[in-house]
C-alpha cells in the first residue's frame, strides 16, 4: 500500500509530545519522565541510553502502550495511544508493535517456529510465507525451528524473539536491553540481525540499552537523564557514546 508510493518521505513511526510520567502520589510521587518531545523516524534504528533511573525503560513502555502517560501524548504511526482503551491497545501491540525483552521472551511450551508466528496466531492472521522465510533465514536458525526454547541457547532464544517481533511487519519494534543477558558473541549476532532488519528490510527499531557497543549499531542514539532528553547523536561510535555517557554521569 504505502510501498506503492515511490520514495516516500521519512514518516514518523512513533512520537511523543509533552510526555510526563509520575508514579505514586503526594510526597511519595516520583517523576520518571519530565516532559519529553521526541520523534522516531521510520526505517531507522534508534538506541536510547542513559544512566539507571533516567527513565529510558519508562519511555519505552509508554511508547509501546504497556504503560500510560500521566500527561502528554504518544503516537504509533498516526494513532494516538492515549485515546485507546485496553482492548485497542492490545490489538495495537499485536498488529503494529514488535517486542524483544531482556529475558523470558518465549513461551516455553511452543517451538521456536510457533513462537515466531505467535502474534499472527493470536490475531488469527495468516503467515506471509515469503517474509517469514526471509526473517528465519536472517536469524539463521532454520534447522532449530522445531525445538523448544529450553533446547536453544540464550542467543538463539533472543534471535527467535527478534524474528517474532518482525514477522507481523510491525510499524516499530521495541527492544528492551535485548543483549543484557547475552555473552558478547551472541550479543553481536543479535545486534547484527537487528541492524540488517533495518538496513535491508526497512524495519524500524527502538532499543533501550546501557551498552555503548550495542548502541553503536544504531543510526541514532538518544540520551536521557532525569526523565529528560539531554542529547542525541547520529552515526554513533563506541567511543563517542562512552564519552557522552561519562559527561552525563559527571
Amino acid at each position, binding site marked *: 500500500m504505502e510501498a506503492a508510493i515511490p520514495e516516500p518521505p521519512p514518516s514518523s513511526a512513533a512520537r511523543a509530545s509533552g510526555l510526563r510520567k509520575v508514579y505514586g502520589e503526594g510526597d511519595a510521587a516520583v517523576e520518571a519522565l519530565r516532559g519529553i518531545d521526541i520523534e522516531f523516524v521510520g526505517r531507522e534504528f534508534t538506541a536510547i541510553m542513559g544512566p539507571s533511573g533516567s527513565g529510558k525503560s519508562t519511555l519505552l*513502555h509508554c511508547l509501546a502502550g*504497556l*504503560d500510560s502517560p500521566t500527561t502528554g501524548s504518544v503516537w504509533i504511526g498516526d494513532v494516538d495511544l492515549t485515546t485507546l482503551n*485496553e*482492548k485497542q491497545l*492490545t*490489538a495495537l*501491540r*499485536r*498488529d503494529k*508493535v514488535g*517486542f524483544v*525483552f531482556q529475558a*523470558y*521472551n*518465549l*513461551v*516455553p*511450551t*511452543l517451538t521456536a517456529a*510457533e513462537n515466531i508466528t*505467535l*502474534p499472527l*496466531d*493470536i*490475531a*488469527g492472521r495468516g503467515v506471509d510465507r515469503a517474509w517469514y522465510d526471509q526473517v528465519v533465514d536472517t536469524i539463521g536458525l532454520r534447522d532449530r525451528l522445531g525445538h523448544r526454547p*529450553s533446547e536453544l541457547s540464550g542467543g538463539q532464544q533472543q534471535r527467535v524473539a527478534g524474528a*517474532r517481533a518482525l514477522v507481523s511487519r510491525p510499524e516499530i519494534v521495541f527492544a528492551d536491553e535485548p543483549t543484557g543477558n547475552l555473552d558478547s558473541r551472541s550479543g553481536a549476532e543479535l545486534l547484527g540481525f537487528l541492524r540488517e532488519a533495518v538496513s535491508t528490510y526497512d524495519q524500524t527499531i527502538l532499543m533501550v540499552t546501557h551498552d555503548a557497543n550495542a548502541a553503536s549499531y544504531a543510526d541514532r542514539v538518544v540520551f536521557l537523564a532525569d526523565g529528560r532528553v539531554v542529547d542525541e547523536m547520529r552515526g554513533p561510535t563506541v567511543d563517542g557514546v562512552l564519552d557522552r555517557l561519562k559527561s552525563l554521569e559527571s
Partner: protein
Amino acid sequence: MWRATFKALLANKLRLVLTALSVVLGVGFVAGTYVLTDTMNAAFEELFDQTTGAADVVARSSTAFDASLTEGSGGGGSEERQPFPEGVLDDVATLPDVDVATGDVQGYAQMVDPRTDEVIGGVGPPTIGTNWSELADQILDIRAGSPPAGPDDVVVDAATARTAELSVGDRIRILFQGPPREFTVSGIAGFGEADNLAGATLAVFDLETAQEVLEKEGVYDLINVVGRDGVAASELRASVAAVLPDGMEAVTSTTVADEASDTLKEGLGFFQTALLVFALIALFVGSFIIFNTFSIIVAQRTRELALLRALGASRRQVIVSVVTEACVVGLIASVVGIVVGIGIAIGLQGLLGLFNIDLPSTSIQLLPRTIIVSLVLGALVTVAASILPARRAGTVAPIQALREAEDAPPTRALVGRRLAVAVLVTGVGVAAILYGLFGAESNEATLVGLGAAVTFIGVAMLSPLAARPVAGGLGAPLRRLSIQGRLGRENAMRSPKRTASTATALMIGLGLVSMVAILAASLKASFDAALTETLKADYTLSTSSFTTFSPDVGERVAALPEVGVASAFRQDGFRVGDASSFLTAVDPATVEDVATMEVSEGSVSELGEEDTVLVHREVAEERGWSLGDEVPARFASSGDMPLTIVGIYDENRLVGDYVVSLDTYEGVFTEQLDAFVLVTGAEGVPLPEVADSIRAAVAEFPNVQVQDQAAFREQQAGFIDQLLALVTALLLMAIVIALFGIVNTLGLSIYERTRELGLLRAVGMSRRQVKRMIRWESVIIAVFGAVVGIAIGVLFGWALQQALRNQGVTEFVLPVGQLVVYLVLAGLAGVLAAIWPARRAAKLDVLEAISYE
C-alpha cells in the same frame, strides 16, 4: 517487588483457604453424619422411654429367635410373636402385686386419605393398628376429640391428621389384613411433643373392634402390667412370669424400650455407615488435593527453602515445618468442618420432616466422639497427604537458593523403581478387590472398599504416564482451532505429574459415579430379563413400595369372570439352621400358570402335602440336599418346623431359594399379607377388559396397583433410577471437592506463569484469549480425569456385576449415553473451575507481569 511479595502472600492465603475447603467439606460430611445419627438416636430413645414408661412389665409370647442373630435377609416376620389366648390376662390381673393389667393387640392398619383416595404411610415405618386402653391413655395425649368408644370410632396420630387434614368427625377408610372398613375419627393423639412415633402411622380402636379388624379375636399380642406402689419392676416381672403358660415370657418395660432402641440403632447404624462411606470418599478425594497443593507450594518455595537450608536449617527442620503447616491447616479446617457438619445435620433433620418422620425436639447431639474423630481424621488426612511433599522439600539443596528460578519445574516421567512401585500398588488394590468379590466366602465390602482406595492411589501414581499422551490426544483437535486452544493443551501437558494428580480427584469421583451408573443399568436389564423369562402373567398386583397388602385383594380378583388365574405370593424371613433366609409362599395349583420355576425334580403340585418345601438347585447342591430330605426350618413365632423337600427348581429370580404352599405359610406365620398377586386374563376376554374389571374390583385398596408387564418394569426402573440419583448425589460432594482441586492447581499454575502470561499479553493476546486459554487447560484436565475415571468405573462396574451374578444381576450393560453425558458434564465442570483462575490471569497487569520475577 514489594507489590509482588504482597500479592504472593495474598495468593498464599487464598491457596490455603482452597486447600482447607476440601478438608472442611470432607470433615463436615463426617461430623454431620455423626451429629445427625446421634441426635436421632437420642430423640428416639427419649420417645421410647416415654411410650413404654406407662407399663412396668410386659407379658408376651417368646420368640424362637435369640436377639443376637438378626443378620441376614430376614424381614419383619423374624420379630413376629404369636398371639396368646385372652384367658392369660385374668391370671395376671388377679395377682396381688398387679395394679393394672391390659390385654393389647397390634396389627396392620393402613389409612386412606379421604381427599385423595391414596394410602397414608407404609413406605419404611409401619402402619400400626392397636387398641385403646387405660395405659394407652397415659402414653397418648388426646389433642382433639375423645378416645374410641364404639365399633365406628378411631383415634389417629397427629401427623396423619395433619397430612390428610383430618379433623374429629371425619370419615376415613382403613385397610386391614381382612376387608377394608370405614370409621369416624373420634380423636387425634400425639406422643408428648411428637406427632407420631418414629414415622409410624397409628390407628387406635376400642379393644373389641381392634380384635375384630386385626383378626385377633379371642387373643392378645401382649399384656401391659402396672405394679402396685412399692413393688419393684423385677419383683413384678417374677410374679407375672410365674403365672404365664409355656411359650410366654415377662419382661420389664426397660427391656422393651431397650429392644426398640436397639432395633432402631441397628437401622441408624446402617444409615450412619452408609453416610460415613460417602464422607470418607470425600475426604479421600480431598487428600489428593492437599497432596497436590503442598507439592506445588514446595516447588514454588524451592528458593526460600534453599535459603533456609543455606542459613543452617537442617533437612529435618524443613520437613517438620512443612508438616506442621499441614497439621495446622488440617486442624483449623476440621474445626470449621465440625461447625459445617452441625449445619448439615440440622439441614438433613429438616429434610426428614418432609418425609413425615417426626422427631421430638431434642437438642443437637455433639458427642465428644464426633469432635475427636473429626479432628483426628482431618489432621491425619492433611498430614498424611503432606508427607511426600515435605520429604521432597527436605531434599532441596542449599545451592538452589543461588540458582536462577526455572520457568517451570521440569518433571520427569515415571521411571524404573517408581514405575514398579506404582504398578505394584495398583496390582495389590486390584487383587484385593478381586479377592473380596470372588475369592472370599462372602462379599467382603470392607476389603473391596480398601482395594478400591488402593487401586485409585496406584492409578494416580501411574497416571502421570498417561497424562501427556492423553491430554495431548484430547487436545489434538484444539491445535488446529486456535492458539489459545493449543496453548491450553500444551499447558495441560507440560507438567504431567501435576495434571495427573489434579485430575485424580475427579477421576475417583467419576469412577464411582460411572460404576454406580453401570450397576444401575445392569440391574435394570437384569430385572427386565428376569421378568421376561419368569413372568407369564398378564397383570401384576402390588403396592408401589413393595409393602404387603390384604389377601382379600387376590381373592376378589380370582373371583372375577374376566380373570383366568390370580395367584398370590407371600414372603417373609425365616431361618435355615442359624442362617437367615427368605421364604416364598405360592398357590401350588396356579403358580405355574403365572410364573416359570423350571422344576427339574419332583413337582410343584406335591407342595399340597403339609410341611413341604421346594428348594433352588444351587442351594440344594451346596447343602447336599435331595428329594425327601428335610430342611431344618425355624420360625420366629412358631419355632422349629422341619420341611420336607418335594421338588428342586432352577429358576429363582422371582421366588428366591425356598418355596412353600400358602397353607404351610399360614401355619408358621401370624401375619398373612400378600406381597404380590399375578393375574392372567380368562380365555377370549380382551386384555383391556380384564384390566378394567380388576381395577374395579380392587378400587377399595388404593395401595394396590394393577400393572401390565411394561408398566411394572417401568416402575422398577424408576426405583433403580431414584437410588442411582441418591447415590450420585452423595458422591457429588467428592466431585465438588475435586473441582476445588482444579481451581486450586490452576490458580497456583497461573501464579507460577506470571511472566509468561505477561509476555503473551505484551505481544497482543487479549484478556478474552487468555481466559479461553486457561479454560481449555482446565477442560483438558477435567476431561482427562473423567476419561480415566470412567475407564476405571467400567472395570469396577463389570467386576461388581460379575460378583453379583448369583444375586440376580445377570446382565452387564454399559450405559454409553449416560457415560458420555458424564464426560460432557466433566468438561463443563472444567469450564466452571476455570472461571476464577482465568479471571485472575486476565487481570494481570502486563507491565508488572513482564517485570515479575
